[in-house]
């Protein structure tokens, strides 16, 4: 055993070895069938299993060895701690991995600073008569912030985020022993991602607030995930409308970008608001206290993105548009720049773990 192993690895191994001698939880999620395929747990195995865990907590409440039993199993908490370590371990560029320490402060503070900066710079550079005037008609937004700035900065931040996240996920994939994936495994993993099957706790939901099963968290996560995708689709539709059909924003209420964006924004705001509420009322015993900040920060940034976008839409013909645009733009930039160093990493890492699991199931 290498001496460099962290406490989280050592504890996860101890717990997995007990779980593997019990196996009562095998009906809950993918973690247990994946565990049963192993007799020994190397660090790479544990990092994989930690990211396969969806944190539904069913295993904690069903556990005959949960505290105060002397075996003291608390798998959801232990795997959450380990997951957070994997985010930092594979973060690229390497020096920025330190951002995963005190991640709640970093992400929340970063977003606040970026939004404030965007406002300040806008106020400094845009004449008050222009900033606080009502603009209508094609190109109205660009009267406040030039199109080259909007598209250029947001685009660059988005590409940088995608590259960093992609490289980190590739690093994680290789570190946990992943190889080329077949089409069948990819299909199964995609299904698991899109349905959040493993948040179902064997089909009955999560243990958000205690011993009772509930679908609330799964539904709120769906609202967040699909809301986010709809917002992204709205952005793509707007880009196509502007660049392919030469019709600059803003678009009418019943246009494709606005319908997609409105639906996405509402879903995202409800989903993230609900997830934050759940984190407040949840049973804290099976949660990792150190990760609460990172969760709230990501949820908060997404919520602010959704709400500022909806406000911008609602007040785009008024004098408030300029300020709202600057605020929303600042949040978008912050979200992209912080993306590879926020809890958002859970999405590609978990997808990679699901793909790895689907591969393993087909290997034999």
């Amino acid at each position, binding site marked *: 055993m290498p001496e460099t192993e962290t406490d989280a690895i050592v504890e996860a191994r101890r717990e997995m*070895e*007990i779980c*593997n*001698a*019990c*196996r*009562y*939880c*095998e*009906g*809950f999620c993918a973690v247990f*069938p994946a565990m*049963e395929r192993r*007799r020994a747990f190397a660090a790479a195995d544990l990092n994989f299993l930690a990211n396969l865990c969806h944190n539904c907590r*069913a*295993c904690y*409440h*069903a*556990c*005959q*060895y949960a*505290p*105060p*039993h*002397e*075996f003291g199993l608390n798998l959801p908490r232990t795997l959450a701690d380990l997951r957070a370590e994997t985010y930092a371990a594979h973060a690229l560029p390497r020096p920025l991995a330190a951002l995963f320490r005190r991640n709640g402060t970093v992400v929340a503070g970063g977003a606040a600073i970026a939004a404030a900066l965007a406002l300040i710079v806008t106020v400094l550079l845009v004449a008050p008569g222009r900033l606080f005037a009502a603009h209508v008609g094609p190109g109205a937004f660009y009267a406040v912030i030039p199109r080259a700035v909007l598209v250029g900065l947001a685009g660059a931040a988005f590409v940088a985020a995608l590259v960093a996240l992609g490289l980190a996920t590739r690093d994680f994939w290789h570190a946990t022993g992943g190889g080329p994936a077949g089409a069948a495994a990819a299909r199964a993993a995609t299904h698991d991602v899109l349905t959040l099957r493993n948040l179902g706790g*064997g*089909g*009955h939901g999560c243990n958000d607030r205690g*011993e*009772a*099963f509930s679908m609330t968290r799964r539904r709120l996560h769906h609202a967040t995930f699909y809301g986010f995708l709809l917002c992204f689709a709205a952005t793509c539709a707007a880009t196509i409308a502007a660049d392919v059909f030469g019709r600059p924003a803003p678009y009418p209420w019943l246009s494709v970008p606005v319908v997609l964006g409105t639906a996405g924004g509402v879903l995202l705001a409800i989903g993230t608001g609900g997830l934050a509420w759940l984190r407040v009322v949840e049973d804290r015993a099976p949660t990792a206290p150190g990760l609460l900040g990172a969760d709230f920060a990501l949820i908060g940034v997404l919520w602010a993105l959704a709400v500022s976008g909806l406000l911008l839409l609602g007040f785009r013909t008024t004098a408030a548009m300029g300020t709202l645009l600057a605020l929303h733009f600042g949040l978008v930039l912050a979200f992209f720049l912080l993306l590879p160093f926020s809890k958002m990493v859970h999405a590609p890492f978990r997808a990679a773990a699901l793909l790895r699991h689907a591969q393993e199931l087909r290997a034999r």
Partner: protein
Amino acid sequence: MTAPDRIWDVLVVGGGNAALCAAIAAREAGASVLLLEHAPRAFRGGNSRHTRNLRAMHAAPTAVLTEAYLEDEFWDDLLRVTGGETDEALARMTIRASAEALPWMAACGVHFQPSLTGTLSLSRTNAFFLGGGKALVNAHYAHAERLGVVVRYDSEVTRLALDGGAVREVFATSRGFPVTVRARTVVAASGGFQANIAWLRESWGEAADNFLIRGTPYAQGRVLRDLLAQGAEPVGDPTQCHAVAIDARAPRFDGGIATRLDCVPFGIVVDRDAKRFYDEGEDVWPKRYAIWGRLVAQRPGQIAWSITDSRAESLFMPSVFPPIRAETIGGLADALGLDPTALEATVRDYNAAVRPGEFDSGRLDFCRTEGLDPPKTHWARTIEAPPFTGYPLRPGITFTYLGLRVDAGARVQMQDRRPAENLFAAGEIMAGNILGRGYLAGFGMTIGTVFGRIAGREAARHARN
């Protein structure tokens, strides 16, 4: 406790599956119900906490059970394991009622696992609780409380005052304070006495001090002993308990399933003197699992060691404790605290007696020894590939057989052959009526569920008349 002068319709003593089924059934029948659980909330549920499945009759495949499992086959299985130590009428009634147990439990919020992929091949006869017994217990408590059953944890019933076959008053210690409870009827569902070492010592002597208790430490048998002393009719062998060989490093209580060891058939087992004492390959492990507890209990110091080599390690389920390993047999003996010369001699004699054969861990393979006493009749393969591994074994007590005699209405029978007036029993405290000897996987939960429901229903009816 609630208002001290309140008279409850039904008092349920105990907090496991049978007690909860009784409490729910009584409440569904309209009775006011108080349930007193000895354990604190974190350890509630008695031995049901450690269970995993329930054996159920069914005529056709269901969502959770494959094929069919009919009354006569179920009865034959029970007859075989008990060797006739059963009551056919009660047993057949239980078997028939088991068909309705699953839908009833599901309606109580208990979830079952769709199909089982693990190492046990019980998916035809037994329905598995999703997440195991603690998840079942959680669902039961939630349902009982939703219905209005009043639950008190940390509340041990110390005495039921019987007068002419009727319970008049019940004395308990609730969170450290003595209380008196008055109820029109009482359901005793407080389990056996397997965690009461002093009581086990009465039959097993000092050997009992070396027993490990696989389940709850709260199964003290206090209510059972109290009722037997007041004239309740006993059933089942008072000296016997179900015991398996488990890892000696397990906790004294509550080690549960994870302390199980399945390595015995793939090596040899030696006692404190490094000598073999029984045929390790007599039959497939599930059938021989249960005799090894008694075998180890009868060895000096109630300890034994399973010795295997590296080829055996992947043949059995991983254990919660790592094996003790060494590169030589002598080194392993040192690590285990055995005499190296003696263990080397035992392994040498065994290796010399192994006859060639086609080893197959999945069936009776007739790979055996010749001229060895005791012989090993299956899976006999030389122990020669280092590292060598050892697991220490001790008796792990699952449950005791002594209980209260009941009739088909779950009513406790008195020694004068009359039924008690307002006292009912369910679960391990009366399982000896039906399972007087041996073990049938998941059948304890069947008895608990069936008799819990009957006891609850009958108690509610009696209380309202």
